[in-house]
């Protein structure tokens, strides 16, 4: 009897508390709206602008000044933008593959294998991650000119790989270190070689981490502008990448940036990336915070 009463009282108090908590939660959720607006509004502006047609609409600050249509997007692909997309995909893809291959080996050695001067190695990796890419521009330009690597995919993905390796190593070291040691030890006891233990046990377990690293590498290679605009400034048929093309779009009138075409190209590039970012949100965040470096 008494227990039932007590339970009822408890229930009432809990409900009151729940209601107060709910109000507080809603207030906090509303504050999150500020963050959403901050992050998403400029992108909304970009989409609206890219859909406007004609000088009058494009030069009007009013977001809803029509007419609207898709002709800007048509213009984008009449300007060889497809080739730019191909170049960027190939270069960022190669960077990702090379970085994951080389980086995961190095990270595993740092996280799990007996290695002398680990601290020195990590300091060197950190130094490379602090490296200003512009310091490479004069010497590599000279070197690439002699080797004939200017305006080639290799000329870009080789330095990209070197520059993204530190980030890859940091992210993957964290992931490899979180895999229980017992697993590899058990495998070695069962007669597996150290390499087999890595290949068959650690690598599959670290797959989510590797995937996160791969996305972050891809994004940073895809977004790179300084080296791309120096080593392959023109010629979409060869190696000009998307950011360089977007920076270089020229309109019918010189010195006037064609706002419709540029914003449409921006949207074309950004939407797939946003979809990927949203789809793999958790993994990317885990990878970014493990690496602690901006892409």
């Amino acid at each position, binding site marked *: 009897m008494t227990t039932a009463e007590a339970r009822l009282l408890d229930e009432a108090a809990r409900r009151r508390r729940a209601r107060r908590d709910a109000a507080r939660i809603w207030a906090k959720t509303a504050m999150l709206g500020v963050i959403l607006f901050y992050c998403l509004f400029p992108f909304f502006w970009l989409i609206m602008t890219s859909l406007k047609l004609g000088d009058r609409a494009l030069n009007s600050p009013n977001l809803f000044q029509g007419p609207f249509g898709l002709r800007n997007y048509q213009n984008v692909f009449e300007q060889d933008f497809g080739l730019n997309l191909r170049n960027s995909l190939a270069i960022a893809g190669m960077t990702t593959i090379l970085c994951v291959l080389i980086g995961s*080996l190095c990270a595993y050695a740092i996280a799990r294998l007996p290695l002398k001067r680990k601290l020195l190695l990590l300091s060197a990796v950190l130094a490379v991650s602090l490296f200003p890419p512009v310091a490479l521009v004069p010497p590599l330009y000279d070197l690439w000119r002699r080797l004939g690597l200017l305006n080639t995919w290799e000329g870009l993905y080789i330095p990209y790989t070197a520059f993204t390796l530190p980030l890859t190593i940091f992210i993957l070291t964290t992931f490899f270190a979180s895999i229980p040691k017992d697993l590899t030890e058990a495998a070695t006891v069962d007669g597996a070689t150290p390499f087999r233990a890595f290949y068959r046990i650690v690598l599959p377990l670290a797959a989510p981490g590797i995937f996160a690293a791969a996305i972050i590498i891809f994004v940073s290679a895809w977004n790179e502008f300084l080296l791309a605009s120096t080593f392959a400034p023109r010629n979409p048929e060869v190696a000009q990448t998307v950011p360089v093309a977007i920076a270089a779009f020229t309109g019918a009138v010189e010195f006037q940036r064609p706002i419709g075409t540029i914003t449409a190209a921006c949207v074309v590039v950004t939407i797939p990336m946003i979809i990927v970012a949203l789809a793999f949100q958790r993994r990317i965040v885990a990878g970014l915070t493990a690496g602690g470096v901006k892409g």
Partner: protein
Amino acid sequence: MADTTVAPEPDTRSNLDGDGRGGPRRFRNGLSEKSLARIFVTPAILLMALVALFPVIYAFIQSLYLYRRRTQIGFGGFDNYVEALTDDRFWGAIRFTFIFTVISVFFEFVIGMGFALLMNQAFRGRGVTRASILVPWVIPTVIAAQMWFFMFNVTPGFINEVFGLGDFNWLGQRGWATFAIIVADVWKTAPFVALLLLAGLQTIPNEVYESGKVDGAGMFSRFWFITFPLLRPAILVALLFRTVDALRVYDLPQVMTGGAFNTESLSILVQQYVVRTPNPGYGAALSTLTFVIVLGVGIIFVRLLGRDLVIGRGEAR
């Protein structure tokens, strides 16, 4: 650092697999964990040395020579450095780069901290917010630059319309051009800082705050005496990478103003002497100076962080 061991190339791997199945014991003696570690580390070190370290040395040597256009005309010693250090353009670039770095990192940090605290409090909608915070991060900087260029530009004049400023020319005058570039950078990277700080906040156990509350600490003193000290490592890491990254700024001023109106950064300046007005010796001297400055600032931070920064990576966090 790289030992002189000859690293067998990856094709030996398949052999290892086969051998391993046949006679594990013999094999374990053949390729120990130690040599495996060396083999694993070698390609990464080689590539980073080849593409990062070697060019810096190459640039330093190149900076000691004099050039006319692309042709070497003689040894100049430190002439190129003297020329750079007495050039107003170089000091202008230094000034812009430092002003940009200090102001933008400051605001990124303040806004990022605010966002992180908000997100750490909320229960509902955290997933959506965390996803949307990735949007500015994933947008290429060049695209962010074009976007903010058009928003600030007189036509279509979106920002002028919102604030009722008429035909205010943000990008066409000194000072305000820097301001516009800083706004674009803060927009793009403050959410990223928030992400890093949020990860740090989530490692602080709730009980610490509870006991702070019991002891009568107010909201502000709880932040100042509990959150801030415990978050120190995360804050320093975020500041280190943001500062070094801001010092290398190139994309935003290049696209938004082309370096006009006192917005020429060090990176833009170096790039000019490589492509537009080629002078490999002078360009190399400028790039060496930039390298020393950026790495110097980085080392100051690493000193502040101490060995934790490097050691912490090796262990699970």
